[in-house]
């Protein structure tokens, strides 16, 4: 651990100069992102500082309920953010919440049962964050694509319904396409690990002075974990959400549908 990274406040202040580079580019190119960038940086500093102290406390207490509560908070926040991608789809928050809960709990349980991680807050919470955030991104992509496909393929869905197809048979093509969209970034990223990017967990362990060969084992575990999380999250989100495009009369909902 003698090579462990040591970021002191002075080096952090110098690193903050990199933000000025980004701000300068934004200002020079008239991108109009200056305000968002400053808000993003300030939020990141505040949120990470709070989380740092919170995690320090939770790790020290090492309480099962507190650990589970923290994981639930992570899932709640991930669901809230995924919800923003599904605006216009009814009850989309709960669809997101249940999907991320399923993907996180199943994947975490698998890892714990396999002995890959221990049920301690210092392992459970960071891993939950990784799973939930990847599920959140995957689900967000699913929702965005689902809204687009239900709009673009509206006539085809109507034709299938008119032929006497169930809601499932009318929309299954869209559902499959959306699940694929949700999983694709993780699949693509897994193909380039090691040759394009040294992923977060592996980099973190190497930074912390861990033998790279040992770090690779953890990264391989993360690849498995994220594939499971994004597939579970995408599948459950799509199967819950697509039904929200139909009413109880198995009609495709539209602004012009008055419903009976």
């Amino acid at each position, binding site marked *: 651990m003698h090579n462990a990274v040591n970021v002191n406040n002075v080096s952090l202040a110098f690193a903050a100069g990199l933000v000025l580079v980004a701000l300068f580019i934004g200002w020079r190119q008239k991108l109009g992102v200056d305000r968002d960038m400053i808000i993003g940086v300030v939020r990141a500093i505040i949120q990470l500082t709070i989380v740092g102290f919170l995690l320090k406390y939770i790790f020290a207490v090492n309480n099962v309920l507190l650990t589970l509560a923290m994981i639930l908070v992570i899932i709640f926040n991930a669901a809230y953010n995924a919800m923003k991608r599904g605006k216009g789809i009814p009850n989309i928050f709960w669809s997101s919440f249940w999907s991320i809960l399923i993907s996180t709990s199943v994947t975490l349980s698998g890892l714990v049962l396999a002995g890959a991680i221990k049920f301690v807050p210092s392992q459970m919470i960071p891993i939950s964050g990784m799973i939930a955030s990847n599920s959140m991104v995957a689900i967000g992509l699913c929702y965005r694509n689902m809204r687009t496909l239900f709009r673009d393929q509206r*006539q*085809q869905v*109507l*034709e*299938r*319904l*008119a*032929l*006497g*197809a*169930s809601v499932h*048979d009318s929309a299954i*093509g869209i559902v499959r396409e959306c699940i694929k969209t949700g999983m694709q970034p993780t699949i693509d990223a897994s193909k380039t690990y090691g040759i394009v990017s040294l992923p977060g967990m592996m980099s973190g362990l190497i930074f912390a002075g861990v033998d790279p060969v040992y770090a690779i084992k953890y990264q391989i575990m993360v690849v498995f974990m994220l594939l499971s999380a994004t597939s579970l999250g995408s599948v459950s989100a799509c199967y819950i959400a697509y039904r929200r495009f139909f009413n109880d*009369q*198995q*009609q495709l909902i539209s*602004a*012009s*549908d*008055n*419903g*009976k």
Partner: protein
Amino acid sequence: MFYAYFRLNDESGDTMTALLTMTDIDYRVGERQILTKINLRLEKESNLMVVGPSGSGKSTILQIMARMISPSAGQMTFDGHDAFTYDPMVYRRRVSYCFQQPTLFGKTVADNLNFPFEIRNQSVDETRQHELLAQVNLSPDYLNHDITGLSGGERQRVALIRNLVFVPDILLLDEVTTGLDTDNKAIVHSLVDHYRDRGGTVVWITHDESEIAAADDLYEVVAGKHTQEVRHA
């Protein structure tokens, strides 16, 4: 506001023998009234032609009949029962709606003609598919044709026989011959005649003068006022 009033055959008809009835059907979207007090009675094996200016609500009536949309008020019966008590999926297999500009899905004609079998969990009956293709002057080879290579008339014919793979009780045709040439129209008319000969009931929307002239019963929907035009062949 559109106001329409329909009666098929005579106004004193027995509701119990009608295949489909609509009573005081209203349809509105927000504050906009699309249909008001639609009353309609459809006997088995009848051929009803619905006419009227564009935007008068003709397609809306057919879509309500097919339960693709629900009315804001009023009652509808099918086969002597409240139409809304049927499972929508089962109902739409018996009251089949063909869109004005139908879309073929999948890649080939077979994808479209297999679909009615797939949703019923039945194995595909190629003999039935060949029979239907023959009825619209298309050879069995067409099953493997890419849908993007079909002409407008061929697409319309494939869409129509897709609705007839399993024979429905009522066939709802929403301007299905609009834009077709004389030959394609004749093929569609022949297909519908064949369906009617087997006891089928048809509701058409059309602007075509020759189809209007050939209608058994003609009903007009006109915006803003109660119109009734009945002509028995």
